[in-house]
């Protein structure tokens, strides 16, 4: 690969969220592995059925996986949830940014100190990128840290348009679509 610094929109991913006093119990009943610490993530399922569950604060959960993943479809399907479980419609734009100089790119748009993260603790970061709220899950990968980012879809164009020239300045590419 000529460019290992890549900004990639993930357009085949689906996500949903849950909150409410009985969300933990219900999600666990659905067979999901839930992170125990606030602002951390866990993986449920394997291979194509893999979903990532991020715990936002004490009792809100964000779940993301490939569109069509059985468990995602099941929990997100528009059926009535038991009382105390509140589904959260999430139409986030999902993208990944990774590769050489990725930290330098992020340093230009976000005040969070990613170098200080203990990746082993599976942290979830809610912060601002270019003044817009985002959810970031850093993951270790063969090319160093790989950041998965979700943002409000109405800001997606603004964020991607802002990131693109910086990524290119650092020798990377912006891929409009990407199948993971």
């Amino acid at each position, binding site marked *: 690969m000529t460019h290992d610094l890549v900004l990639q929109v993930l357009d085949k991913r689906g996500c949903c969220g849950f909150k409410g006093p009985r969300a933990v119990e219900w999600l666990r009943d659905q067979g999901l592995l839930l992170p125990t610490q606030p602002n951390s993530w866990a993986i449920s399922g394997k291979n194509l059925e893999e979903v990532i569950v991020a715990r936002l*604060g004490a009792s809100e959960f964000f779940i993301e996986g490939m569109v069509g993943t059985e468990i995602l479809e099941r929990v997100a399907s528009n059926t009535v949830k038991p009382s105390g479980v509140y589904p959260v419609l999430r139409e986030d734009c999902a993208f990944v940014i990774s590769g050489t100089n990725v930290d330098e790119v992020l340093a230009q748009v976000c*005040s969070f100190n990613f170098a200080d993260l203990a990746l082993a603790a599976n942290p979830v970061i809610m912060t601002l990128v270019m003044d817009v709220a985002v959810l970031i899950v850093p993951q270790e990968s063969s090319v160093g840290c790989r950041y998965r980012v979700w943002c409000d879809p109405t800001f997606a164009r603004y964020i991607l348009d802002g990131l693109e020239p910086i990524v290119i300045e650092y020798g990377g590419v912006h891929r409009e679509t990407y199948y993971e």
Partner: protein
Amino acid sequence: MKLLVCPLNGPRPVTEFAYGGEVRVSPDPDACSDAEWGNYVFNRSGSPGQKYEWWCHAASGFWFIALRDTTTDLVIATYPAEFVQTGFSRVRPQ
């Protein structure tokens, strides 16, 4: 840039937060006089000092209470927002 330690998200620059003003206890609207209510609505404890304040981490929508010295800008402690329902009147500085 000032750092604020969010009880949920950890230390973040103050630009990630929205300020919600001093925590103030309203008088009983049914029992108080018009003057007392007007005093509550408009008047402020404007002198510097240690104040309990509402702060919201904007990216997560998380509200909490910070005890902050409004002269030095140092945060002495933070509390979860539930603090205003449970212990606020008890620990409020005299």
